[in-house]
């Protein structure tokens, strides 16, 4: 297996408004030295709750958010070291699907032009070839050719997400970054889009970097999973290993919290693990393990020293007391 995308110690810092006029600038470390690997032809899911930094990690990995440090190797080439023009050229290999199908399409452009625009910008093929490609893509994602001249507001949420996917595929990318691609859709429509993504991955040999808060969706789509908490990956490994026997207490809590059809009120289920409180503030992260305050297993060591990621079977876990 070869790595398509490999992040090493990727760090993102946001500058906040100063607390006082003469005070030092305050920084928020949204992503703290994150490393992960996405193999060719596979889907890597990044899961976490809001504020975990999962979206920022992905955006920094494809240079839509500026990274403060680290490396992102795409086919062995460090994207963060490329100049703007070289990065622009690289974008044809890396495309993006957004969460909100309503705000991710320019409302003033016809959908055929939206799908065609990446090819225009990258100057791919002749104009006639681009038109043919737009039609082909429409068929591929399950839209009809007679809808080419319409505007985004004339489509339903699911159809808009199909348009978004067609746009992303127009440059024949190798990597598709999917940022919560189904969380704004109705459940019945979610299945349509998830099945479409699964089919496209097989047919076109795509790789996905898939961001989601929904464990069920990630389990369905992804081959590998990285769990994030307060800007760090706490557990990373093959899907089945994580879902069947998570080693990090946070992963365990996340799985216990996700609604499941197996837990019935009639049977008086008791949640195996409950979390209380909220994650700490990313402006002043705790000096030890970020999860320590909410962790049932936390001990003195956890509060003093951040755990280093290490191998636990098939998984890479950042916890002093895994299992």
């Amino acid at each position, binding site marked *: 297996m070869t790595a398509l995308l490999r992040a090493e110690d990727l760090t993102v810092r946001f500058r906040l408004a100063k607390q006082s006029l003469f005070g030092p600038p305050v920084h928020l470390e949204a992503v703290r030295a994150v490393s992960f690997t996405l193999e060719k032809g596979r889907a890597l899911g990044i899961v976490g709750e809001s504020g975990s930094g999962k979206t920022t990690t992905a955006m920094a990995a494809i240079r839509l958010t500026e990274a403060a440090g680290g490396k992102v190797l795409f086919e062995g080439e460090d994207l963060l070291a490329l100049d703007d023009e070289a990065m622009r050229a690289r974008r044809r290999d890396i495309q993006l699907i*957004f969460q909100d199908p309503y705000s991710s*399409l320019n409302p*003033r452009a*016809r959908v055929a032009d939206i799908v065609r625009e990446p090819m225009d910008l990258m100057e791919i093929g002749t104009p006639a070839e681009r038109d043919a490609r737009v039609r082909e893509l429409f068929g591929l994602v399950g839209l009809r050719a007679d809808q080419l001249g319409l505007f985004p507001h*004339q489509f*339903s949420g699911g*159809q808009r997400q199909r348009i*978004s996917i067609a746009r992303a595929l127009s*440059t024949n990318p190798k990597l598709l970054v999917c940022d919560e691609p189904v969380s704004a859709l109705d459940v019945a429509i979610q299945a349509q889009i998830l099945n479409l993504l699964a089919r496209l991955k097989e047919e076109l040999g795509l790789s996905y970097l898939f961001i989601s808060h929904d464990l069920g969706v990630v389990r369905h789509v992804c081959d590998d999973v990285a769990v994030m908490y307060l800007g760090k990956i706490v557990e990373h490994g093959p899907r089945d290993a994580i879902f069947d026997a998570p080693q990090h207490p946070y992963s365990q809590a996340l799985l216990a919290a996700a609604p499941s059809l197996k837990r019935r009120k009639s049977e008086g289920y008791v949640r195996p693990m409950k979390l209380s409180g909220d994650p700490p503030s990313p402006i002043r992260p705790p000096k030890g393990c970020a999860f320590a305050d909410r962790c049932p297993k936390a001990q003195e060591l956890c509060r003093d020293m951040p755990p280093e990621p290490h191998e636990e079977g098939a998984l890479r876990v950042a916890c002093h007391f895994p299992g």
Partner: protein
Amino acid sequence: MSDMTDYKAESPAREAWRMFRRNVPALAGVLILGIIVLLTLYGQFFYAGDAFDVVWAPHEPPGATAEYPLGTDYLGRDIIAGLLTGGGPTLAVGAVAAAITMVIGITLGALAGFYGGWVDNLLMRITEFFQVLPALLFAMVLVTLFSPSLWTIAIAIGVVSWPQTARLTRAEFFKIKELEYVTAARAIGARNKRIIWTVILPNAMPPLIVSATLTIGVAILFEAGLSFLGLGDPNVMSWGLMIGANREYILDAWWPVTFPGLAIFFTVFAVSLIGDGLNDAFNPKLRER
């Protein structure tokens, strides 16, 4: 109410136009403005007479002679001829001033809103500087410095009225640049120039169009104000100049001031109606009605 797709290609602009057509006050505005524009463009061909020619006794009241139904001014010049020839320059000053306002305001506002940071800081300080200048006084200084021609007047008005447009544009850009379709454009490798002018600006246009329309009205009033103060272009007849020239005699003769005043009133009123209509048409919340 729910997901619905009607398979009629209707662009947002066409939809706005459909809304606009149903707006009776706005249509009245278009009608009034249309009549005024037609009269100022073609009226002179049907109603011969130079506005500067002394044709009759001074201060002939309206209705006194069949030949000059609206009477004459303090020099004995025909008021109808003045209204017909004076309308063109008045409207032109309004349009040119509004155009200058839009060009400066949109450019600076777009750059400030898109780039943020120090660019925004610098441009906004400049904007504030122009905003706190007493506009009328500043325009008077400009006109006095560079001889009062129609062009300098239009430019002076444009230069003092752009800050509002700049602020509006900046606010729209701040809002729209966070939307995902802008990130989407960056993700497919669009350069900043393209994002500013072909992605964000078209989406920011609706409130700007409304503001431009209203700016025309303000500019016309501004021109009238300058002329009233005696700073108009004395070689070109305009409604403002008519008012300015006759204002000293207003107690003896009301008509040389009132008729151009009414002309300005109706023009600005019509422009405001159109502006409000456009505002409603672009406002998606009202669209569902």
